[in-house]
């Protein structure tokens, strides 16, 4: 047996082109991260926002809707309330911090709901094909023809404005994007021989879908998720601006609504939460673009 034992050597990349690289996948991804400035910027902003959201209760223990000082004091005029106050004398800094909580919570949970439905629908349709796929594609298209924002408004109007309902409604309205993506990935991947190999080994369908195919489809899904979360934050802001947000919570959208009538004089009441939304959405998009480059081995090789 050992008489013909083969080479123990490592890779056979394009021979003569590059010597065997012994880098592991982990280190490759890490290298890609370090060289990706937009991703680093986006990730740090996002991290900072998340940190503020988590610590909001500690930093500003009181209810952000409480009247704590004189209304409409400009930022940097009062040491106790450095970002100024709103039309009802609320602390804007506290509002921004608590608003971050609401916005990120909506973003994450709406994206999760969309992801869950989208992956299930897309995976089943893409893997099985045939009649199941036809039906699921029609349903997906049905949801896509209705404008997202309108659908969310209708759902919230029916079920009442609370954070879980809003997040759920946004998720329900946005899953078709994920479903279409996942379906396309599954249709390509299912024709790979490794799926045939898995079937020949007697793996169950669940194992093949979630254990074999899904991990290969993850990179584009992860990228889409960040965009999905960004859109969810925007949608929630829009809802709150229209007064359809959760009345028991301060969100960036409701803060903007609060400053609407003061736009010409005390513009900072609107500008501060507006800037927070812009920054967060931008950071999510940067992270999404960055992940696209990092998770895609082809774009790495061009570096």
């Amino acid at each position, binding site marked *: 047996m050992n008489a*013909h034992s*083969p*080479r123990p*050597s*490592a*890779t*056979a*990349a*394009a*021979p*003569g*082109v*590059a*010597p*065997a690289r012994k880098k592991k996948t982990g280190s490759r991804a890490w290298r890609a991260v370090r060289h990706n400035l937009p991703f680093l910027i986006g990730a740090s902003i996002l991290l900072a926002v998340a940190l503020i959201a988590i610590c909001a209760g500690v930093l500003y223990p009181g209810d952000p809707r409480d009247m704590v000082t004189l209304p409409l004091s400009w930022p940097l005029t009062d040491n106790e309330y450095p970002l100024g106050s709103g039309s009802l004398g609320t602390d804007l800094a506290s509002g921004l911090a608590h608003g971050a909580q609401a916005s990120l919570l909506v973003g994450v949970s709406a994206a999760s709901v969309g992801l869950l439905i989208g992956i299930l629908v897309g995976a089943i349709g893409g893997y099985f094909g045939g009649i199941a796929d036809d039906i699921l594609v029609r349903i997906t298209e049905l949801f896509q023809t209705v404008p997202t924002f309108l659908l969310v408004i209708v759902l919230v109007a029916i079920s009442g404005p609370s954070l879980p309902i809003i997040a759920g409604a946004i998720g329900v309205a946005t899953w078709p994007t994920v479903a279409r993506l996942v379906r396309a990935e599954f249709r390509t991947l299912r024709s790979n021989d490794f799926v045939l190999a898995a079937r020949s080994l007697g793996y169950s369908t669940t194992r093949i879908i979630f254990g074999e195919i899904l991990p290969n489809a993850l990179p584009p899904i992860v990228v889409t998720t960040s965009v999905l979360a960004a859109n969810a934050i925007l949608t929630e802001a829009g809802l709150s601006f229209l007064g359809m947000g959760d009345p028991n919570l301060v969100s960036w959208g409701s803060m903007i609504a609060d400053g609407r009538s003061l736009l010409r004089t005390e513009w900072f009441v609107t500008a501060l939460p507006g800037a927070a939304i812009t920054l967060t959405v931008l950071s999510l998009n940067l992270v999404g673009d960055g992940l696209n480059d990092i998770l895609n081995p082809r774009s790495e090789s061009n570096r």
Partner: protein
Amino acid sequence: MKTVPVLEVLDLAIGFPAARAVHGVSFEIHKGEMMALVGESGCGKSLTAFAIMRLLPPGARIQNGQVIFDGTDLATISPRELRRIRGNGISLILQEPMTSLNPVLTVGVQVAEIIRQHQNLSRAAAKARVLELFDLVGITEPHKRYDQYPHNFSGGMRQRVMIAMAVACNPALLIADEPTTALDVTIQAQVMDLLDKLRRELSMAVLLITHDLGVVAQWADRVAVMYAGRIVETAPVQKFFSAPQHPYSMGLLNSSVSNGEGAWHYTNHRLSEIKGSVASAAQATGCSFAPRCRHVIAPCHGGQPKLEAVEKGWLATCCRAQNQEERIHEFA
């Protein structure tokens, strides 16, 4: 007897930004000759062939050497002059006849276009020439076939169309990159026979890139074996198959499942193997094949041996082949 070769490649080196892939390859092809460039995937044979027409993949560059065709160096001439030679003086046949034709144009139009691009012919004259070519490459009912689309053609027929396109302007050199790899074995024989007939009738030189030693033995006149970006042996086909001089050539012939007589069976013959993998060539200081060679002697580690004559017209890059005393006689 010494004639001017159709193509002379001198010390050609091709590199990617990261590393060099072809290290100083030299060979020549004469009129009417079919020369085979063989080697395993990644040895640089296709890269070398494409470099002749300067059709290199992105990032690759000719770093050194000359490609002399018709008295000019193709490695340095302007893109404009090069376009005049491509498809006219030198033409190319690719492996995949399914994707090399434009699916939305009729086959006849595509062949006529090539002719009209290089020759000042009227539409009618070009069509007449195409019909003549179809007949030459064995496409039956050329009139009917002229107006059909590529999807109406089988793989073998498409390859015949590709050949018609390639020989349309009577090129002096035809480069065929694995022309039959995608075809069935019965069709392969037909296509190779056709190429063989054409090069005799049109006295055209053919550079055949292949990994199939059977094809080399049956149809080529001369063979150059590449390993890790270098030609390790070049010889007339008869001599190569009866007494290869480079240990890599020997290894290739020995690991073949067929010895020509065909008596080998797993029950009575164990195939010989070439140990290791090409990746080990990158680290070697001496001969790039030394890490895998069964016949290594001390001088092998001294440096990369040059391609030197074993006999007239027979060269090898092996320090043992060049020394009468040290010759390896595996093929008794």
